[in-house]
């Protein structure tokens, strides 16, 4: 088989790992492809590179293709999410003034109880809290809004502002923002710079939040089925390797290289191991499943996840939009088609009740060995994708 080079854009983040590992550890080569990995300076640039054909695939915020499917944002090219690269992996953090106020009222930074954290935040400050996020269309924004509207915090009491993650620590220090929701390593960078403390992992709000997807232009996905298949499989094998505990040290080393994240491996290992350092006080918390790449159908692009996002976006922007059109960018069909020749255990359904799984649960699958992991929302709500129709 001729080895084909596929240009792929990514943001230098922990959750770009499946793509970086696919290329660096030979999983791409095994599928007779080479990934030309191109770091992007911003999500807008990355989206434009993909939309205009500078690259054929990208590491993308899961909400972006859904928002574009609903006609939101400043580009109209149709994108397809052909697999999920990572589940969870964000952190919510607060700046020093808020951290001090929280400690003064005896708040224990338990890094797990979303309701208690919201309650304590409300008590520690009257008036609006300004949260920095990387991009207006992102799981960061959706998690914050969901959390605020269903707790004492109150969605009317928060303001969400876009701040490029490399500038997040500066913005905290300057007081432009009070808090943030960002993907690793940027939360840990803020902690190490002494400007903030971590309050919650993203999974404390939704345990099953798809964070980044492997995205392509829809036309490319349909006209280059062979390449898309090789790409999906290479990334799937990379994520399987990545999920093994014994791979962690090597993975952190690879990601830490100058060409990729250019950060100390120790900082990267915090997210991979789920052992996060919360603040300058040095509190360490273990968060199992902080970020997941593989197993329990982690990379399966569930239509119901996309419907949840489309539903939330349509509500917020008051769109009279077709939720189905927004959700159809999650291409469970392509994923099935291209993964059918592997030993992956594919779920029987392409939609599930989001938030309904509270314990590891066996579900129907083509090999009969698939257990899904908890995907609970912190408030126990269940999202039924069929109820929208």
């Amino acid at each position, binding site marked *: 088989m001729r080895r084909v080079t596929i240009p792929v854009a990514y943001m230098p983040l922990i959750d770009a790992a499946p793509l970086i590992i696919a290329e660096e550890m030979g999983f791409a080569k095994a599928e007779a492809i080479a990934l030309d990995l191109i770091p992007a*300076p911003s999500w*807008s640039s990355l989206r434009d590179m993909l939309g*205009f054909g500078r690259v054929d695939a990208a590491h993308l915020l899961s909400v972006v293709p859904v928002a574009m499917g609903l006609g*939101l*944002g*400043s*580009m*109209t090219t149709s994108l397809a999410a052909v697999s999920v690269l990572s589940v969870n992996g964000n952190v919510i953090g607060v700046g020093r003034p808020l951290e001090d106020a929280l400690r003064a009222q005896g708040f224990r930074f338990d890094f797990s109880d979303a309701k208690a954290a919201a309650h304590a935040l409300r008590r520690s400050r009257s008036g609006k809290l300004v949260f920095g996020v990387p991009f207006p269309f992102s799981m960061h924004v959706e998690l914050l809004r969901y959390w605020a509207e269903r707790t004492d915090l109150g969605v009317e009491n928060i303001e969400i502002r*876009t701040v490029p993650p490399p*500038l997040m620590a500066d913005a905290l220090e300057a007081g432009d923002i009070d808090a943030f929701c960002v993907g690793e390593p940027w939360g840990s960078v803020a902690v190490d710079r002494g400007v903030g403390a971590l309050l919650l992992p993203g999974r404390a709000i939704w345990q099953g939040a798809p964070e980044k997807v492997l995205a392509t232009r829809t036309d490319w996905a349909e006209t280059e089925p062979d390449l898309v298949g090789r790409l999906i499989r290479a990334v799937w094998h990379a994520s399987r390797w990545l999920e093994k505990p014994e791979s962690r040290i090597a993975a952190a080393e690879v990601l830490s290289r100058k060409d990729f994240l250019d950060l100390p491996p120790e900082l990267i290992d915090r997210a991979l191991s789920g052992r996060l350092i919360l603040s300058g006080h040095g509190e360490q918390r273990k968060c199992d499943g902080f970020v997941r790449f593989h197993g329990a159908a982690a990379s399966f692009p569930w239509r119901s996840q996309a419907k949840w996002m489309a539903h939330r976006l349509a509500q917020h922007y008051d769109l009279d939009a077709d939720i189905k059109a927004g959700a159809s960018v999650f291409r469970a069909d392509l994923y099935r088609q291209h993964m059918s020749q592997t030993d992956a255990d594919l779920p029987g359904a392409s939609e599930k009740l989001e938030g309904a799984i509270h314990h590891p649960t066996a579900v129907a699958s083509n090999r009969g060995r698939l257990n899904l992991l908890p995907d609970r929302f912190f408030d126990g709500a269940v999202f039924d994708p069929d109820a929208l129709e």
Partner: protein
Amino acid sequence: MQPRLTVVVVEEDRDRATGIVDALKENGDCDVHVIGNYASLARKIAAHSPDIVLIDIDNPTRDMMEELTLASGPLDRPVAMFVSGAAGGLAQAAIEAGVSAYVVDGLAPERVKPVMNTAIARFSVLRQMRQELAETRRALEERKVIDRAKGLLMKAKGIDEDAAYALLRKTAMDRGRKVADVAEALVTAAGLLG
């Protein structure tokens, strides 16, 4: 006569910004404002209610612009990204030149065009200058590593500078690699052994 266009340039580097502003003023009838500090960028831009916003495509603060495209209040004029707007054909040229532009929805393409043509020309020059600078820096770095490798060889083998360089070059040719790569490997190895 139509009102003058208001253009906002988002650029931190003063020299670059000045160059862009001068070019725009020379070539068109427009008011140009520069924003050089990125804190609260979206609000600062909105305060000028610009017709066109120009920003380097590699600028990470571009993501803040996306927020403006969502604003819909009477004072926050909606800013649509140029590339999906009316002036279509210029989009590719703009991207290649390294400039991204946000244009108020509904602004006539013939009004956008002169500003964009100037911006594209100017950004192309800036991009080229930046590439040349990076190239010069790299060459300088390579020079330093080669000098260190030469020094190591001279000391270890008791040869003179020309012989040391000849040895590096021969090794590079035999291996099909660049002299700088061989020098880098030697310096790294010497550091490990040293």
